[in-house]
């Protein structure tokens, strides 16, 4: 059975796995974005809190995904919970960092001007600083998503959802004629999903980055 026959035969299962993969990554990214921007907003003003957040996220990023999942399993068990926690946590890191860098990079004179025309602190944040910091935050989101695609595949070993299951099934049945097809379907599926997400982010960037600061 060659790869195309395999796909024709099993397309339902592959599509179901792909859907689950995309869905878990997407949901975790939404959570990570909200949390990440929130942490960025809370910490960027203070020198030490911002640096602490940056250092902490950088340190967490060095932890291998499999080890992180391994540490989560004794606490929350197998399946979806460790996957979601690990994905959200890893997804958070680039976003927090970029949010802090982006918010700190906003030209202070612009913030001053906003204050001068009588904007409240919240309005300044919502209408001046966050829109200006949005491009780097979006970049962080894209970096995170690519990373999560791969980490979600590993999480399948802890009975998580998604295309990683195909890869691990292939590894488990090494030597059988379908092993290659399964691994290939899982791997290519993840690459395709990553590219689709990336294209979506380009589109979101076009739609949401204010015209004035578009390069």
């Amino acid at each position, binding site marked *: 059975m060659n790869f195309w026959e395999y796909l024709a035969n099993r397309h339902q299962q592959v599509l179901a796995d792909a859907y689950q993969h995309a869905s878990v990554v997407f949901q975790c990214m939404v959570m990570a974005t909200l949390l990440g921007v929130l942490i960025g907003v809370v910490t960027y003003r203070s020198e030490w809190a911002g640096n602490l957040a940056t250092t902490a996220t*950088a340190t967490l990023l060095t932890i291998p995904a499999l080890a992180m999942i391994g*540490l989560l399993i*004794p606490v929350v068990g197998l399946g979806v919970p460790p996957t979601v926690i690990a994905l959200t946590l890893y997804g958070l890191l680039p976003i927090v960092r970029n949010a802090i860098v982006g918010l700190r990079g906003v030209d202070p004179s612009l913030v001053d001007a906003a204050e001068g025309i009588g904007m409240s602190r919240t309005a300044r944040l919502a209408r001046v600083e966050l829109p200006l910091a949005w491009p780097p935050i979006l970049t962080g989101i*894209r970096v995170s998503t690519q990373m999560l695609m*791969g980490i979600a*595949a590993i999480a399948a070993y802890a009975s998580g959802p998604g295309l990683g299951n195909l890869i691990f099934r292939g590894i488990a049945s090494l030597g059988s004629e379908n092993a290659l097809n399964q691994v290939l379907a899982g*791997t290519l599926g993840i690459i395709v999903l990553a590219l689709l997400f990336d294209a979506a982010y380009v589109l979101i960037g076009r739609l949401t980055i204010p015209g004035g600061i578009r390069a």
Partner: protein
Amino acid sequence: MRASASGSSGPSDPSGPSGSSGPSGSSGFSGSPGAPGSSGASGASGASGSPGRRPEGGQGVEGRALREEGGGRPDGAEASPPPPAAKPPRVTWQKLTFRPAVLIALLLATWLWFEQADLDALTRNALSNGQVSKALWQHIELTVISTFFVLIIAIPLGILLTRRMFRRATPVAMALANMGQATPAIGLLALLVIWLGIGRRAALIGIIAYAVLPVLANTIAGLRANDPTLLEAARGIGMSPLGVLGRVELPLAVPLILAGVRTALVLNVGTATLATFGGGGGLGVLITTGITSQRMPVLVVGSVLTVALALLVDWLASLAELLLRPRGLEAGP
């Protein structure tokens, strides 16, 4: 920007790989490893206005490359206040001791937990006969060997790709690097195992293949970020191309290359946990045994040791980054 360069994204950041001019390339990348932050500040100061906000994009080098910032922080802090007051020493006391202290505490806590845990036969079996130290040792071996190969492949290739005659190939290499990032490590490893058969060789090749592209991207970014006027000056005083490379370009790019070493090391510690799926051994063996046999102590030992090793390696690499950086590059502008 690396991230954005992937796929079809060119438009969202024009300073992307298409930018052949020094400054645009450099600013696009400057965020990637903490180090270039400083070189970006001095070199590409002209461009750092609007693209100044782009550094974070650069960190895309690899999702993980962001971690460089951690190490880069202290010098970032020392460079950012415009009138640099008394410059802090390269290696601060806290930096030297904090991470190891945390690691020791972590290992101690695990050990204490073990003392009181009662282990069943299966667990004891999985952890006895020096199997833990064997896995740890295998893991270190995998990491060191793969890092060595990553560096001897990626750095010369990066130097080659930034020479005048190959400059056209640089965007291609960058685009490839971006595509490679979308490939899941576990899928790559599984394909190699199917292709080359189970064993350490397939695992090693997979680990190397996964880390070459980010390090290559780092090296290219570093060499391109060099201030073109310095190279011009070097050529102007009659240095040969080789002399420019050896005495100006490479020393200037040392911070970036060291950041690449760190990226490679940390990535490889992580990917090496997956070697177990290809029969390559390493600490991943303990983790997977723990998961499949539902023995939490085994799982915890494997995970804690992996985390400790990753943090230790990152810490050592960050020290190396601080100590080996050419002194002339420290002060910033």
